[in-house]
C-alpha cells in the first residue's frame, strides 16, 4: 500500500514532545481539556488524567507543553515527571523546584534550550527576566536554607509552593504533573501524594495530575481526610480507538518509510489494542531492522523479536524489576503469574500466591498492588486475575519458558512465532466480527423508558406488515401503530460474558448483552427487570432448531446469575422463520431483524428519527485496483457509471465523470514508471458529491505549473506540443474540483463532481 497520509507541517516547535504533532492522534479532546485550564478563569481549576497503561499519557502532557510554550504572554507550562529514580521525597521535590524555575525562565525568555538542559539553580537567577529576578532569588535562598537544615517537610512545602509564589508575583504557570502514582515509591517522612493533592487543590494555579488510573487516586487520597477534587475535571485516557490506531500505523509507516499493506496495518492496530506506545515501538523497530511489513509472517517475526528483546520486552522487564527487585523473587513471580494465566479464567487465590512466593502478607500486598496498578493483573481481595492483554500474555509465557523452565531460546522463539502467526488471522477475524456486531449493549443503554411500536420487537409481525416496504413507508406504518411497548429504564448494561463466563464459549462478547433496569415506576423490587439480548449470526432467517437452542440457553444464564424477572430478546440479521416465530411467541421471547434494529435505533436516537426521513447510512466508499494497459480504464469507467447512477447524476454528468476517469487512468499509465503497473481507485460518495481518487506508484506526472500550460485558454488544436497533454485539460474541464496530491512514491489525483442542487 502506498502511504496515503502526507504529514502536515508541524505547527510548532517540538521541545518535549517525542513525536511530531501529526503523529499524535486521537487526543484532541484531552488536549482541549488541558487548554481549558486557565488561571483566574471560572472554569475547572485542574484536571485528573486517569490513564490506561501504555496509552500515551506522558506524550499527551508533553504535547500540551509544546503547544502552550508557543503562547507568549500566557501561563508558562511546566512539565514534571515524578520518578521513583529520585529515591527520596526530598530529592524529588528539589528536582521539581529546579525544573519549575528552569522551565519558567525558558518560557519567559522564549528559550526552550533551558528545558532539556536546565542551568544550575543559582545561574537561573541571573538568567531570569528582570521582573522575576527578585522573587526567584528569594525562593532559591529559602530553598538553600531548608536544604541545609535538612528539614524535609519545610523543603517539600517550599518546593511545591513555588508555582503559587510565582503566581503571586505575576508569573503564572500551568503545572503538568506526570506519573504522579510513582511518588508512592519515594522514601521519606512526608507523604508526597497528599502534599501534591493539597497544593493542586488549594493553589491559585491550574494543575494537571496524571498517572495510572488504578494508582493515581490512591496516591492522592491517602491520609485521614482525603482531598476533594471538586474543582477538577477528569479525563479517562484509554488506548486509541480503532480508526485512530490504524491512522497512526499508516502515518508512522509514512514517516519511518516502512512499507506495509492494509492487512498488516490492521493486524498491528489490533494486536497492540491501539496502544500508541507499542505501535510506535513496533514501527520504530521495523524502521531500524528494515523489515517490510507486507505479510503477517514478517509482522509476527518482528513482533516476536520485540517480545524477546525490544521495547515491549524492556517495558515489562522494568515493571517486574520494580515490583520484585530481587532476582529469585522475580523468577518466582513469573512462575506464579504464568501458572495463574494458564488457569481457567486466569484466576488464582491470593493465599496461593503468598505460599508460592514465600512472602509475608506485608511484603505480598505491595507486589499484588503494583501488578494491579500496572494492569498486569487484577487484585480482588481474595484472588488475582491475570490480564488478558495478548502482548503481556505472550511476554509472560516466553519469559517463563526462558527464565524458569530454562528452555532453549531458539525453541521458544520458533514456537512463539508459530503461535502468534496462527493467532493473527484469528485476531483479525475477531476484529471483523466485533466490527459487524449490532451493538446490543449500546442500544439497551438508550432505552430510557421510551415507548416503541410493538412490531419492532416481534419479527413475525414486522415481516407481515413491512416486508418489501421502503424505509419511509415502514416509518409511516410504525408511526401509525397503536400497540406500543414501554422499554425499561436501563440503569446498567454489560456483556453477558461479564456475568456468566461460559457465554464466551458460545458467542462473541459484543453479541450478547445484559441490561438491568426497571420497567415501571417506582424503583421497587417488583419493577426490577433484566433484559438479556443475544445476536444470532446467520445469513438467512434463523430456523426453529437454532432458535430453540437460544430460547433454552438464555433462561439458563438468567438462572445461573440469579436474575429473577427476565425479558429475553433474540436478534438475527435476517430475522426468523415462521416456525421459529411460533416458538418465540410460545416462549414470550422478543425477536428482531437487523432492519428492525436499525429502525429501533433511529427511533431511540434524538437526531435520527425515522419519521423524519432519516435512513441508515448507505455504503459510502468503493475501491478498485486495475492493471495498467489492456483498455482496463473502460472497466473503471463502467464502475464509476454505476456509482454515479446510484447518486442520480444526469447522463451528461455521468459521461463527464467517465471521460475524466478514463483520462486519469491513461495519465497514470503513461506518465509513470509504475513498479506494480496498477492503478488504485477510490470512489467516495458524499451527500452532495462524488469524489474519485486515482493513484499509482512510480514517477510523478508533471507538476501543477506544467499542467497549466494546456489550460491557458488557447485553442489546443495546432499546438504541436499540446495534443498529447489534453487529458489534464479535459479532466479540469469535466470535473468541478481537481487536485493533485504529492505522495512519496507516485501520484494521486482527486476529482470531485458535485450533484446539481
Amino acid at each position, binding site marked *: 500500500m502506498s502511504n496515503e497520509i502526507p504529514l502536515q507541517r508541524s505547527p510548532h516547535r517540538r521541545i518535549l514532545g517525542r513525536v511530531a504533532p501529526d503523529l499524535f492522534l486521537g487526543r484532541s479532546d484531552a488536549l482541549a481539556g488541558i487548554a481549558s485550564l486557565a488561571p483566574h478563569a471560572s472554569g475547572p481549576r485542574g484536571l485528573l488524567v486517569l490513564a490506561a497503561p501504555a496509552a500515551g499519557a506522558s506524550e499527551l502532557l508533553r504535547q500540551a507543553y509544546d503547544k502552550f510554550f508557543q503562547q507568549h504572554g500566557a501561563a508558562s507550562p511546566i512539565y514534571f515527571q515524578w520518578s521513583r529514580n529520585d529515591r527520596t521525597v526530598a530529592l524529588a521535590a528539589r528536582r521539581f523546584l529546579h525544573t519549575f524555575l528552569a522551565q519558567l525562565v525558558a518560557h519567559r525568555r522564549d528559550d526552550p534550550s533551558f528545558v532539556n538542559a536546565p542551568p544550575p539553580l543559582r545561574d537561573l537567577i541571573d538568567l531570569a527576566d528582570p521582573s522575576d529576578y527578585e522573587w526567584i532569588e528569594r525562593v532559591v535562598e529559602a530553598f538553600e536554607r531548608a536544604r541545609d537544615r535538612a528539614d524535609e517537610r519545610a523543603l517539600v512545602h517550599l518546593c511545591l509552593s513555588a508555582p503559587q509564589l510565582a503566581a503571586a508575583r505575576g508569573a503564572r504557570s500551568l503545572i503538568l504533573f506526570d506519573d504522579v502514582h510513582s511518588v508512592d515509591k519515594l522514601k521519606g517522612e512526608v507523604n508526597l501524594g497528599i502534599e501534591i493533592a493539597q497544593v493542586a487543590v488549594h493553589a491559585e494555579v491550574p494543575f494537571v495530575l496524571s498517572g495510572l488510573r488504578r494508582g493515581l487516586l490512591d496516591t492522592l487520597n491517602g491520609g485521614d481526610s482525603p482531598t476533594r477534587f471538586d474543582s477538577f475535571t477528569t479525563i479517562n485516557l484509554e488506548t486509541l480507538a480503532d480508526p485512530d490506531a490504524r491512522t497512526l500505523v499508516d502515518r508512522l509507516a509514512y514517516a519511518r518509510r516502512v512499507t506495509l499493506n492494509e492487512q498488516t496495518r490492521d493486524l498491528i492496530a489490533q494486536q497492540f489494542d491501539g496502544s500508541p506506545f507499542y505501535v510506535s515501538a513496533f514501527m520504530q523497530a521495523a524502521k531500524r531492522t528494515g523489515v517490510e511489513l507486507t505479510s503477517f509472517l514478517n509482522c509476527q517475526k518482528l513482533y516476536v523479536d520485540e517480545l524477546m528483546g525490544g521495547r515491549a520486552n524492556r517495558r515489562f522487564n522494568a515493571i517486574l524489576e520494580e515490583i520484585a527487585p530481587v532476582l529469585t523473587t522475580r523468577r518466582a513471580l513469573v512462575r506464579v503469574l504464568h501458572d495463574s494465566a494458564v488457569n481457567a479464567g486466569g484466576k488464582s487465590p491470593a493465599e496461593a500466591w503468598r505460599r508460592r512466593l514465600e512472602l509475608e502478607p506485608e511484603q505480598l500486598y505491595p507486589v499484588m498492588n503494583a501488578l494491579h496498578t500496572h494492569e498486569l493483573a487484577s487484585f480482588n481481595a481474595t484472588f488475582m486475575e491475570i490480564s488478558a492483554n495478548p502482548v503481556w500474555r505472550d511476554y509472560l509465557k516466553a519469559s517463563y519458558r526462558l527464565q524458569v523452565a530454562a528452555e532453549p531460546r531458539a525453541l521458544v522463539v520458533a514456537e512463539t512465532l508459530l503461535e502468534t502467526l496462527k493467532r493473527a488471522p484469528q485476531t483479525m477475524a475477531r476484529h471483523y466480527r466485533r466490527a459487524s456486531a449490532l451493538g446490543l449493549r449500546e442500544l439497551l443503554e438508550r432505552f430510557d423508558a421510551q415507548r416503541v411500536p410493538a412490531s419492532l420487537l416481534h419479527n413475525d409481525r414486522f415481516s407481515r406488515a413491512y416486508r418489501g416496504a421502503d424505509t419511509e413507508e415502514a416509518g409511516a406504518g410504525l408511526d401509525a401503530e397503536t400497540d406500543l411497548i414501554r422499554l425499561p429504564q436501563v440503569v446498567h448494561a454489560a456483556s453477558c460474558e461479564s456475568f456468566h463466563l461460559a457465554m464466551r464459549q458460545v458467542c462473541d462478547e459484543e453479541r450478547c448483552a445484559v441490561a438491568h433496569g426497571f420497567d415501571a415506576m417506582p424503583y421497587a423490587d417488583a419493577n426490577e427487570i433484566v433484559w438479556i439480548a443475544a445476536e444470532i449470526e446467520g445469513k438467512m432467517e434463523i430456523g426453529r432448531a437454532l432458535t430453540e437452542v437460544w430460547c433454552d440457553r438464555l433462561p439458563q444464564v438468567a438462572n445461573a446469575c440469579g436474575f429473577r424477572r427476565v425479558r429475553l430478546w433474540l436478534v438475527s440479521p435476517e430475522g426468523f422463520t415462521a416456525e421459529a416465530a411460533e416458538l418465540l411467541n410460545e416462549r414470550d421471547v422478543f425477536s428482531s431483524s437487523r432492519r428492525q434494529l436499525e429502525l429501533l435505533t433511529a427511533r431511540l436516537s434524538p437526531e435520527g428519527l425515522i419519521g423524519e426521513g432519516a435512513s441508515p447510512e448507505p455504503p459510502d466508499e468503493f475501491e478498485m485496483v486495475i492493471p495498467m494497459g*489492456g*483498455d*482496463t*480504464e*473502460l*472497466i473503471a*469507467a463502467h464502475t464509476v457509471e454505476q456509482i454515479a447512477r446510484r447518486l442520480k447524476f444526469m*447522463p*451528461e454528468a455521468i*459521461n*463527464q465523470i*467517465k*471521460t475524466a476517469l*478514463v*483520462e486519469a487512468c*491513461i495519465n497514470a499509465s503513461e506518465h509513470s514508471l509504475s513498479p506494480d503497473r496498477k492503478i488504485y481507485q477510490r470512489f467516495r460518495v458524499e451527500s452532495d458529491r462524488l469524489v474519485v481518487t486515482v493513484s499509482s506508484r512510480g514517477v510523478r506526472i508533471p507538476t501543477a505549473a506544467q499542467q497549466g500550460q494546456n489550460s491557458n485558454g488557447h*485553442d*489546443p*488544436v*495546432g499546438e504541436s506540443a499540446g*495534443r*498529447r497533454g*489534453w*487529458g489534464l*485539460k*479535459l479532466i479540469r*474541464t*469535466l470535473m468541478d474540483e481537481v487536485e493533485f496530491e504529492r505522495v512519496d512514491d507516485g501520484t494521486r489525483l482527486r476529482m470531485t463532481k458535485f450533484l446539481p442542487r
Partner: protein
Amino acid sequence: MTDQAGEQPVRSERAGDVAVVYAGEYLNKLSGERVERECRRRLEEGCRALVLDFRQTGMVNSIGVSILLGVIDAAERAGASVVFSAVQHQAAQVFEMLGLTRHVRIAKNRTDALAQIANSAAVGVAPNKTK
C-alpha cells in the same frame, strides 16, 4: 463494448470517391491508429472525401482525438474533405471540448454525411471548415 476495442479490424467501404470508415467501440491510441491507417490508405487510393462513422463508439479518449487530428491534417493535405457521422454523446462532448468540431462537419448519420459531401461537391466547396 469490448475492453479490447483496439484489436478489432477497422471496417470501411467505398461510395464512389468517398470512403466511409467505421470507428470501433472505444477510440483510444491503438484503435485510433488503426482508423488513421485505414483513412490514409483510402486517401492514397484517391478518395476525395472521408466519412468517419462513430455509431458504435461509446467512448473516446484524448489520445484517440489527437490521432483524429492527424487524419484531418492528412485529408487536408490530400485535398479531401472529412465528415464525422453518428457521433454519440460522450464522443461529441470530447470533440467539442477539444475544439475538433471547428475542423470537421458533423452529420447525423452516414446518409446525411454522404449527402453533405455530394452537395458541397455540387457547389464546388470543400466541406471541411476553415482552420
